[in-house]
């Protein structure tokens, strides 16, 4: 545990990517393989270990320290990090007591103090947790709390871990990224295998997803200037679903999320359809929730809210399967007849995709074409000029898509978010001026600063909430608003402050969705603050009617 604790605090102390990679590489070189396997999984944000609920932890800390639970909550609201709050509240351990646990490695510590109590009764859990508290010094305690509550948040991405491991193994970072897909090494043997200098194809692992960048200038003239001749680009709709990969190998088909999670159970109909693909096929595409029209009616898109009812499930009830059917719309073919074809030009890959996946999703939406399959390829949006493409992009909102994807016809399927070949040409967000009604202290760098805002618009003569927004302001603005929030607090409900409406924020969003949480009965999607409208007063803010009119 000591080596991992040191690793954590070293990573925490630097913001330099290069330094983080160096620190990680040094750790992986020296670490016991079982510990290293554990560390990779934890750092890549693999499955949460969570053995106890955070409310239990809070309660036990309250009992151990004799502090009332509300004071633990107030402390958490101020510190903005539960693992740290609990560590700061607990009495200091005797440094000598750290020995037994710090000598145990990460894997053993996790086994003994976390895995061992999954499913145990509360009394046992409590005993193990409190005994661990007494053994660990505060520095290790924070790290251990992060492990037991899931989520390390130390500014290390899977990409950085892959870069460090690639350095240790002496392979390309892209190869290492591929080896880390699907959760990371399970044990010492798998960790050793990951470090192998020889590249072998893995049976089930998905490929690292290639991501597009947003165009900085969205107007047609700038896009044309930036990207050159329109015919060198392939355009598709940017679907509002969930990116995924189908990996069809000899034995079975698997479905993977962009986060590297296996999501077969949530989408049984997709798995069934994928089984019809020839072995040695890997498709990159988008999961979408659709409604099947009656009779000859075309399919219609149900949107992301519906899809989120399906994703993340271990088991899908029959009714949900019928209410929210899902489809897989393939963009790209990464593996064909057992060969990795990512380096081939997009045009080539696309041609092969069209023979493998004959049904075009565009036809399904245009209908009437009742279809048995739920496996489609994405329709292309064709245009001879940028202006024409811009007109098509203008249809996006009506079509329920987020804009266009532009991919260079000659491009390979890369890794990560390399700029230049794949672009998102999104539609302009909708905007409304909304009033700050509640504020709550933030987390991490914004700990103790009121930086999470609930915003509202007018419904007649009252303000109703429509969104919670966290980002978009500068640090200086947040500090200033924090002062205003404190000075205009009407009421406090735990960490939430209700303020006199004085501040108006320009809010960008992508659409509206029904909401039981917000008083307006609806919530805006992907809300973010564009800027603070110091020039506006609450009475100048938008109304619910404005919002409905926009969508």
């Amino acid at each position, binding site marked *: 545990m000591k080596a991992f604790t040191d690793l954590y605090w070293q990573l925490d102390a630097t913001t330099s990517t290069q330094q983080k990679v160096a620190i990680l590489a040094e750790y992986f070189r020296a670490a016991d393989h079982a510990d290293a396997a554990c560390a990779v999984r934890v750092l890549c944000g693999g499955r949460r270990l969570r053995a106890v609920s955070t409310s239990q932890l809070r309660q036990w800390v309250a009992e151990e320290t004799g*502090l009332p639970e509300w004071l633990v909550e107030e*402390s958490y609201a*101020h510190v903005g*990090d539960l693992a740290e709050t609990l560590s*700061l509240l607990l009495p200091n351990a005797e440094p000598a007591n750290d020995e037994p646990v710090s000598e145990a490695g990460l894997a053993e510590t996790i086994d003994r103090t976390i895995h061992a109590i999954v499913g145990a009764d509360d009394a046992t859990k409590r005993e193990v947790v409190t005994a661990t508290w007494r053994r660990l010094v505060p520095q290790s305690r924070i790290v251990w709390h992060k492990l037991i509550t899931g989520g390390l948040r130390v500014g290390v991405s899977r990409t950085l871990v892959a870069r460090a491991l690639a350095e240790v193994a002496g392979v390309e970072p892209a190869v290492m990224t591929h080896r880390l897909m699907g959760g990371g090494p399970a044990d010492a043997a798998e960790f050793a295998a990951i470090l192998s200098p020889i590249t072998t194809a893995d049976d089930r692992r998905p490929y690292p997803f290639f991501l597009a960048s947003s165009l900085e200038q969205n107007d047609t003239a700038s896009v044309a200037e930036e990207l050159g001749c329109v015919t060198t680009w392939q355009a598709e709709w940017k679907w509002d679903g969930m990116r995924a990969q189908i990996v069809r190998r000899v034995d079975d088909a698997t479905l993977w999320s962009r986060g590297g999670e296996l999501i077969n159970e949530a989408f049984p109909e997709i798995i069934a359809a994928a089984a019809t693909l020839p072995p040695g096929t890997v498709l990159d595409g988008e999961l979408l929730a659709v409604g099947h029209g009656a009779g000859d009616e075309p399919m219609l898109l149900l949107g992301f809210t519906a899809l989120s009812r399906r994703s993340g499930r271990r088991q899908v009830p029959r009714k949900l399967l019928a209410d929210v059917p899902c489809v897989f719309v393939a963009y790209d073919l990464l593996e064909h007849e057992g060969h990795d074809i990512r380096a081939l030009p997009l045009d080539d890959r696309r041609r092969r995709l069209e023979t493998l996946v004959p049904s075009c999703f565009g036809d399904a939406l245009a209908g009437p074409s009742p279809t048995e399959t739920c496996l489609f390829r994405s329709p292309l949006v064709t245009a001879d000029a940028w202006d024409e493409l811009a007109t098509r992009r203008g249809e996006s909102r009506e079509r329920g898509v987020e804009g266009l994807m532009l991919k260079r016809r000659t491009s390979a399927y890369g890794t990560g978010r390399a700029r230049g070949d794949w672009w998102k040409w999104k539609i302009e967000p909708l905007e409304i001026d909304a009033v700050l009604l509640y504020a709550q202290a933030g987390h*991490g760098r914004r*700990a103790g600063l009121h930086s999470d805002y609930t915003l509202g618009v007018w419904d007649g003569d009252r303000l109703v909430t429509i969104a919670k927004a966290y980002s978009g302001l500068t640090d200086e603005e947040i500090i200033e608003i924090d002062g205003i929030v404190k*000075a205009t607090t009407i009421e406090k409900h735990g960490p939430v402050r209700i303020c006199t409406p004085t501040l108006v924020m320009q809010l960008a969003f992508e659409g509206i969705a029904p909401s039981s949480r917000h008083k307006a009965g609806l919530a805006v999607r992907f809300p973010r603050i564009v800027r603070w409208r110091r020039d506006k007063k609450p009475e100048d803010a938008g109304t619910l009617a404005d919002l409905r009119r926009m969508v």
Partner: protein
Amino acid sequence: MPDLLEVTDSGLYCAAGDFYIDPWRRVARAVITHAHADHARSGCDRYLCAAPGKPVLRTRMGGNAVIETLRYRETRSINGVTVSLHPAGHVLGSAQVRVEHRGETWVVTGDYKLAADPTCATFEPVPCDVFITESTFGLPVYRWPDPSTVASQINVWWRANRDAGRTSVILAYALGKAQRIAAMVDPEIGPIVAHGAVMKLVEAYRASGVRLPSIDRVPPRARRVGGGRALVIAPPSVLGTPWLTMFGESAVAVASGWMTVRGIRRRRSVEHAFVLSDHADFPGLLAAIEASRASRILVTHGFSDVLSRFLRDRGLDARPLATRFTGEASPDAADAADDDAESDADGGEAVLP
């Protein structure tokens, strides 16, 4: 019977004695707990402070201010109200104000800490009926490490920087913490150098008889002062200014109680942080409140809502008292209670409508 002390537009007022304690507006007679900007405003007709704090208050209030003093524990009658000043342990000359009238005793702590500090007299509990306490760090997450531990952490850091040929710059309030750090560290490691704002107060401390190691003033437009061996003590406001460039390669650290919390540390974006405060930590506040034996507690600047609720949970008569003191209250104000912020320290955390 009206309360002996009450908050008015001008500050904490004693009607029976017709004087203010740390007023935030110009008044005829001000009793001052200590010379930080949010407690001592210029422009009052007469000031009364503890004797060791006079040179410090003089540097803040200017040469013409009328400053009277009391020795610690010495009493004086102001319009029939008995007033005495008692060590608060916050900075040099800091005092708790004891006010007694018709058999009732109130104590106003100003800012205070319980830990030992070589540059000022140690906090002394004063029994009273009503205790007005600060609550800057009134959350249980704030528990200070032993000052000697912090001193050795600073020494280790300074020595490592010196060996690497890097100047050590430590950011701390010009009044109090800067001098405390100078007195805490091991002067054998290298030269100690101070910013002009700190130096002015170093001189005031020396004038009051506080022993400090040799400290050099930074000469204007100098290059590589201290040759990469020095410990530079400066107010937080120098961060991000060209002033820092005259030391060549340097490592910058902040010394503050807020540095307990990682999120606040990260926000300050300095490489190193030391947990060092001139305020009481949570256990310190509780200890002082208990030692006062007061039956009624009024909680000012900081976490006044939280601390008073906690005290009420424990069966005490406690409630928040809104004032305009800021203490070390805002972790984001680079120089709260610093002399550079003297012109306007209004708008602090504790202001509620």
